[in-house]
């Protein structure tokens, strides 16, 4: 039951709960600070400062702004965050009557995007300027999507492009195509492998969690700013853990040891002694002897499965059984006739 966590996986849930506590606590703090008029400092993020400039340039040139919320398989936190930023961009575009185009990879994202952008135009009092076709579903195949969006960028001669979200191999195709038409590009990928491509091809890149800081940076809502502070507290906790682990390992890896935690059954270790300290011939300490390794890789109890046909010992978990389903009246008895 709860032994599962005590044996193996308690670090993950504990850290998750800690992060939740940090975020909720700081949201509360920020809301209280907001009421007194104080503002929390967020460092400058060049890519986000460039949004106004990009949309303004597009308005001057009379060319559309194209936005792509990545290639998600469903509506997840990354897509919602991308759409939050696109809502901000669309708001500015709506004020300047600049055409926009949002290209969606996933049909569920398409429906969510349509509603969000319609709401934005409504809030700006520009609902008559809202074009239903400004939010489009292109394709749910990766390279068909890339081909479609590239074609749109070339035909529409986009002046500004925003690539924010989950991008994979098609990132460079989209970025280079936008570059070929002279568009200002702001990009961010949550896939580390694609960030270098964006850095090479785009004007402004949001790296890592600058993407998540974007909505707090742009709107300065207390909830978002408080959440950002909570995230920073979590990162400090991670840094502290890494530093502690580095120091602890540096101290503990010196010298030799004559005991170790038995990880498996062997000639000298019986099943009931797995996970306990056993005496061994003296040897130099290894990473497995450190506190950090023990904390992050605890040794689980031996569990006997019912399906272990080669093992004669009884299974670890014996449970009561469901009653057998009633035999249908018209069933054929073995050897009998119906």
């Amino acid at each position: 039951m709860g032994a599962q966590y005590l044996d193996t996986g308690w670090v993950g849930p504990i850290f998750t709960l800690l992060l939740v506590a940090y975020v909720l606590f700081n949201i509360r703090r920020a809301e209280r600070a907001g009421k007194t008029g104080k503002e929390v400092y967020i460092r400058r993020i060049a890519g986000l400062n460039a949004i106004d400039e990009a949309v303004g340039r597009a308005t001057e040139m009379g060319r559309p702004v194209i936005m792509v919320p990545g290639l998600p398989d469903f509506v997840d936190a990354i897509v919602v965050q991308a759409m939050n930023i696109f809502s901000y961009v669309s708001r500015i575009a709506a004020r300047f009557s600049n055409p926009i185009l949002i290209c969606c990879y996933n049909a569920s994202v398409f429906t969510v995007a349509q509603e969000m952008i319609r709401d934005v135009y409504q809030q700006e009092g520009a609902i008559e300027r809202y074009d239903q076709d400004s939010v489009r579903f292109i394709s749910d195949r990766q390279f068909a999507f890339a081909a479609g969006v590239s074609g749109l960028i070339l035909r529409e001669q986009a002046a500004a492009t925003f690539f924010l979200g989950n991008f994979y191999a098609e990132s460079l195709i989209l970025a280079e195509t936008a570059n070929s038409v002279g568009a200002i590009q702001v990009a961010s990928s949550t896939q580390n492998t694609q960030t270098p491509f964006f850095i090479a091809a785009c004007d402004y890149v949001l790296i890592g969690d600058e993407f998540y800081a974007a909505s707090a940076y742009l709107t300065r809502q207390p909830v978002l700013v408080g959440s950002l502070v909570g995230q920073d507290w979590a990162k400090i906790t991670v840094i502290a853990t890494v530093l502690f682990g580095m120091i602890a390992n540096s101290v503990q890896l010196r010298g030799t040891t004559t005991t170790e935690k038995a990880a498996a059954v062997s000639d000298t270790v019986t099943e009931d002694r797995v996970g306990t300290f056993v005496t061994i011939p003296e040897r130099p300490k290894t990473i497995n002897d450190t506190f950090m390794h023990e904390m992050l890789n605890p040794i689980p109890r031996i569990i006997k499965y019912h399906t272990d046909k080669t093992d004669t010992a009884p299974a670890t978990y014996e449970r009561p059984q469901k009653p057998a389903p009633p035999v249908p009246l018209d069933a054929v008895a073995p050897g009998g006739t119906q």
Partner: protein
Amino acid sequence: MMDLLAQAAPTDNSPFWSGANGSNALWIGILVAFLLGVGLIFLLIQAPVRARRTIVAFFTFISGGFYVLYYFWPQTIDRQKMDLPRTPLEGVSFWLEDAMPVVSQLTNILAGFLLGLGIYSLWRVHGRKVIKMQKDWIFSFVLLASSILMVVVGYMDWATKQGPDGPKLSEHANWHTINYARDFLFEGFLQQMDAAMFSIIAFFILSAAYRAFRIRSVEATVLLATALIVMLSLMGAVTNAWQGAINHINPSPDAFVQNFSLDTIRSWLTNSVQTPSIRGIDFGIGIGSLAMGLRLWLSLERTGS
């Protein structure tokens, strides 16, 4: 224990939540669920505007709460088909395990319906372009024509495989014209176009590198130097020549000069610079995703504002 959402096999003792394929009970269940769904939507539309946010937040919390519970609740170990839970705690974990595939399928079903909306949007946009012969209408015509062709040919190909001669069609010798047509469109066209689009990246990498790798600042110089080292280390001819030069100075594996072999420098860059950087960014993205998900689950996020 409660069978809510945990769809049992049709032969199990829970006829209310499941029905055998094609049975009257199943059809009645579908009809009742449909009517309930329509009723629910009607009630939502009638709900006062102020209450809508609360209703949406409630359903969001319930939906997300299931996955949160699944993550935190201890999972069952070595559960057998006819097992009953030993304690209420284990009962909840049994229910979660049974309900997870059903809940996951709800997402797939929703995605399936929404795909129809996406396709409708596609047809509307491009159909209007073709009918009114607007700018670049020929591309829209190609899209519509190829989608119709793919659907028709794909369906006919599938239909031929459902008949009694279906298994024979695994051999090319038994193919009909429609099977060849589907193979030509799918394997010959679609797969090759996929591969061609992927290959275009090679050209774009060349032009992006030519444009981006300039010695404009200290950071740009460091970027260029590390990129050069990594590119050179990928070339076997260069690494061999480089290693040959180093071995010419001192061939001993323990010699200090061996630290300057291309593989060693690249390994150092990868292990000591690149890996920690990627790890750091991953931590930030993971924590950011978690915080974002928490805000969405608790409806603290005011989307679109």
